């Protein structure tokens, strides 16, 4: 069991765990922040799959711009922070 196999297993489990946290969380701002964290860990897994172009695109768009689209939508409505 060398280091890459352990790292690959660890990242797969973390991806599934954060996905479960997004779907089953009651507060909507927590879901948005966890979506941004999911994009960051996806970019780490893209680097492990030897795809640097896709990793740069996923970080900048998925974790930088999409999070702000969601937060701007909630800002213009007065219900930020309410549960489901």
């Amino acid at each position, binding site marked *: 069991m060398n280091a890459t196999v352990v790292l690959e297993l660890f990242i797969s489990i973390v991806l599934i765990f954060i996905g479960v946290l997004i779907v089953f969380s009651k507060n909507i701002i927590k879901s948005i922040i966890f979506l941004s964290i999911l994009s960051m860990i996806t970019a780490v897994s893209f680097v492990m799959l030897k795809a640097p*172009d896709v*990793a*740069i*695109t996923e970080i*900048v768009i998925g974790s930088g*711009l999409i999070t*702000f*689209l969601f937060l*701007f939508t909630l800002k*213009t409505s007065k219900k930020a922070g309410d549960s489901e």
Partner: protein
Amino acid sequence: MKKILALLLVSVFAFFAITLVQSDQLVPKFGDADLSSRVSDKYISKSVSVDNKVVEYGETVNAETGSANLVTSIVVNYRSFDTLGEVTVLFISALGISLIVGTTDGMIKRSESGFILKTGSKVLMPILLIVGIYVITHGHLTPGGGFQGGSMIASAVLLLLISDHEFVPNMNKFKVLEGLSGSLYIIIGLVSISLTGYFLKNFMPTGQVGELMSAGIIPIIYLFIGLKVGSELTGILSDFLKKEANV
């Protein structure tokens, strides 16, 4: 009731997906992609229309595409029509968003940001802008390109939007830049028809693989795509902050 039906549907999908992955005919086993039977073999050795030659970094002159980044040579040269389609989809979505938002009275009231955000963004914004321009122009040598660099430029303007509560971007100049860059991409394709007879074919000489001035029209097209994507995403983000018009 809804949850049980959703679980049933998801388990049907799971059954299909696991069958797809386990059978080795539709999807190859993980890590065993056989490249000699795919078309990527010809994209890697840059021999789609000429004979098989070995391409070396820093030595081959006048190869078929001339860019050292193989993904860039696919996106801009071999499958350039798909990139034109993607630019069109982004344009249509930006157009649709600004039509739905409509005419408004200005931006919503933003509160003043804290001290860390104000001083940190003053340091970070020029660095983001310069890294974005670097990533656009070196798209054929390092990982990067037009889409990545354009999004970095848009996120530099986004940083300015969230840290300064009185910043109103003048979108007229951005829209002119976006329209100009998009039409220049198509004009290059039409010039290529008149010079070589094919839409978006490489008509300039590709220099030595690995130099900055190489790869024909690839850096020029990526420059236009980068400017267009940057101004388009800035327009989308600034449309999200407009105030609702009084009905």
